[in-house]
């Protein structure tokens, strides 16, 4: 079994070798690598690409996190929308009922002069806005009758 990590002699060797690079100026390292015939331009390009890829990965991770949050939120909203009544009449009844019983809903719907005159699409849209605002949290419990 390997016991390299316990080898202080080897550790000292590594430490001594490391110092040579740590203390070196980049110009010295470049000159020595060139003198040895290494393709320094290619090595530098490769390192540059690795570093820039990492920056891109970081940005993609942020984007990924944002997408994940968006998907989560969309799923939550979709699940809530399923709870809306299936028929246009029942949805309109829900909106009118909510506006008369809840001040927050009434404030949101105040821009409409008469809820009875709203198009079906506007009713649907208003209910979805209210769901997003969290103003219809109880609809699942109280208004499932329109789906049945």
């Amino acid at each position, binding site marked *: 079994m390997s016991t*390299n990590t316990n080898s202080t002699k080897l550790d000292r060797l590594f430490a001594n070798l490391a110092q040579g*690079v740590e203390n070196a100026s980049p110009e010295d390292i470049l000159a020595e690598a060139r003198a040895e015939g290494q393709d320094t331009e290619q090595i530098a390009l490769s390192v540059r690409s690795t570093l820039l890829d990492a920056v891109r990965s970081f*940005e993609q991770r942020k984007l990924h996190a944002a997408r994940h949050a968006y998907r989560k939120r969309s799923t939550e909203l979709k699940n809530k929308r399923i709870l809306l009544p299936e028929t246009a009449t029942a949805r309109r009844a829900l909106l009118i009922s909510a506006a008369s019983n809840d001040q927050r809903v009434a404030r949101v719907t105040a821009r409409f002069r008469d809820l009875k005159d709203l198009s079906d699409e506007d009713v649907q849209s208003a209910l979805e806005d209210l769901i997003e605002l969290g103003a219809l949290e109880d609809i699942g419990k109280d208004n499932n009758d329109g789906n049945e």
Partner: protein
Amino acid sequence: MPAQTEYIAGPDEVRQAISLLTEGEFLKLKRLAEQAISRLRRKIWSVDADDLLHDAILRLLEEKRRWKPKRVDLVGQIAGIIASIESHWLKCGKRSQPPLLEADQITDNADGEAVPTALALAADHRHGPEQRIIAAEELTEEQLFHQIEELFSEDPLASLVFSEWQRETTGPDIMKALDLTRQQYDTAVRRMDRAIQKRWPEGMPHVH
């Protein structure tokens, strides 16, 4: 100004700093990473110098290492992060765990589907071809040091420095005894480093 000392570089600033690095600075970073990987090879197999550099940048941006560009140059900052990652991965290796890379944090793709991470792939502890070759090459410490000594058979200064190291003579004492400047000593050390790297590009053989 307090706000300045708390300022942390973002992706654009790091990208800009990378684009300003010189060819020599890229080479220095590469060699620092290769040396760290060579030391880690004693316990960790699943990562290479590119993984280390990639992770260093991610850590820099994740603010696990705060970089204040006005006070520390990027090469110095990455060198510090490499040392920190090396120490962390070595601890993982001692516990027989694959190292947890920053890049492993993503576990699903943009469609939410699970994807195998580098961590999961690294968890396969079966020996790869490189590991099998080096494991087969297991030596005693004495044999390894003898092989290293042979690498410097045509480089009298390197040979002298190496034998002094084995006697635990410090760098400053070697310089004094051999009447070397710091630059001459460091140049010889880097020559030794490159010779060892060339002989064992995937890491030195295990010793027992």
